[in-house]
């Protein structure tokens, strides 16, 4: 078997293990689905009349506007959960055993990230299903759905890289878990929940430049109106940037962990 094929097999096995782990541990799976779903339901009921405000984008309903924000929130939490699971593996010594095995070290991290991306794709399907059940039309139809699932999976992968870097650096699940509130800080400072022109300063100004705003607009456009070239490109560039940060920091953290001897 070639080295590349062997790496692919390791990535696939570890990715499958990561998905099984998320499903079997409610403390990993529940925050990805239950929390964003509850928040979506409460915010839709609580702020639903916002669509009547002057300057609010043209949408069928507030739920249609909010779906992209819920998906972004879920895939950020998926990245965080992936980091927690990796830290638990480090704490329990499982990662040390993998590092001692004759496999590529990067495939150990890539396997975890592949699992995180799949979990991200699942959350996209979950929220799209909720939208469809409650009568939200997806303006770009099947193509739009495929685009959204791919974009959410890529975003989860990018955030998974950042979660993995922190897990590898700290080796403690509690440290990665501590990022949970930070996720909400970044989300509230983006257009995930409300259009920037109706947000209050200084959050509105920050949201204009927050890369998450670009990601969420890339997800939102095919739901509420139509594909937009510039918005899609900005979303891809933001995900690419976040992914690069995740990749470089996790590679450095992995190298540091190997040097320190676990």
């Amino acid at each position, binding site marked *: 078997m070639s080295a590349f094929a062997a790496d692919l097999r390791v990535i696939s096995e570890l990715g499958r293990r990561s998905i099984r782990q998320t499903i079997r541990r409610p*403390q990993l799976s*529940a925050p990805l689905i*239950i929390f964003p779903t*509850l928040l979506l*339901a*409460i*915010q*839709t*009921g*609580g*702020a*639903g*009349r*916002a669509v*009547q*405000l*002057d300057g609010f984008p043209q949408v069928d309903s*507030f739920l249609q506007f909010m779906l992209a924000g819920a998906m972004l929130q879920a895939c950020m939490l998926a990245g965080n959960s992936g980091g927690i699971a990796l830290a638990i593996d480090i704490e329990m010594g499982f990662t040390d055993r993998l590092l001692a095995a004759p496999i590529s070290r990067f495939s150990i991290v890539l396997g975890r990230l592949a699992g995180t991306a799949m979990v991200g794709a699942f959350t996209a399907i979950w929220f799209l299903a909720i939208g469809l059940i409650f009568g939200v039309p997806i303006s770009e139809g099947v193509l739009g759905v495929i685009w959204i699932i791919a974009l959410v999976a890529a975003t989860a992968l990018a955030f998974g890289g950042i979660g993995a870097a922190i897990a590898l650096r700290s080796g403690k699940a509690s440290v990665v878990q501590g990022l949970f*509130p930070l996720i*909400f*800080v970044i*989300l*509230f*400072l983006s257009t995930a*929940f*409300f259009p920037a022109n*109706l*947000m*209050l300063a*200084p*959050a*509105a100004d920050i949201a204009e430049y927050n890369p998450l705003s670009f990601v969420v607009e890339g997800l939102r456009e095919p739901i509420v109106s139509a594909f937009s070239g510039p918005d899609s490109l900005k979303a891809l560039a933001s995900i690419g940037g976040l992914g690069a940060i995740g990749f470089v920091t996790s590679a450095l953290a992995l190298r540091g962990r190997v040097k320190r001897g676990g």
Partner: protein
Amino acid sequence: MSNFRANVAMIRALVRRSSNELLRVPGAAIPGVLAPTIFFLGITSAFGGLTLLPGFTTSSYQSFVIPVSLMQGAAFTGAATGVNLARDIEQGWFDRLLASPAPRPVLLAGIVLSASLRSLIPATILLIIAFAIGAHWPGFLGLGIALVVVMGMATVAATWGTSLAFRFKSQSAAPLMQAGMLLFVFLTTAYAPLDLLTGWLQDVARINPVTQVVEAARQGFVGGVTWGDTWPGLVALAGLAVLLSAMALRGMRRMTA
């Protein structure tokens, strides 16, 4: 020592033990402060434009949301008491307490009172932040009522947390302790006045007793203070506290049965 004095001494000892934790582990108060602060600043910044809706009762969203965040802080503090109790049960410390001649309601009172007092920490920090970013001064009466309601809400959350701790005897029940109370707080007029809520949330908020609690805490920040807006909140808190205390005492008795 008379029974009454012995009971008071027991409650004081339990409250002192709880405050010792705060002094020795300063980070213990952070979860109860951090999450409500992030949500307060986040919701205010993101949804502040809602005040432009016709029929919204104030132009200051900070003033509208701060009572909700105060309730959230109280709920987290109360839930943390449940988590700490679950830890004491896991480590066998609570068994020793049960072996003491102290009446069960006195043990519960000590645990719950400590939560009630601790809830003033997140409340103080949240109020400082709120006033710094422009929330209305509710007047001394409004502020006093809000703080009484905060302590009452922490009592309710603590009885909820302790009843779950007795039921599950494990810290793994922590998410249930926190999420249950958070749901109670957010399924109210948290984001907008009742008339501006939409769909199912309007119906749920109408029958959720915590809506009355939030409105009682809100009155000084949005509009004037009236007895008519105060008593429903106090009755709701008393009702919830009695109901959940009964559940917690039942759970405690089952532990020794």
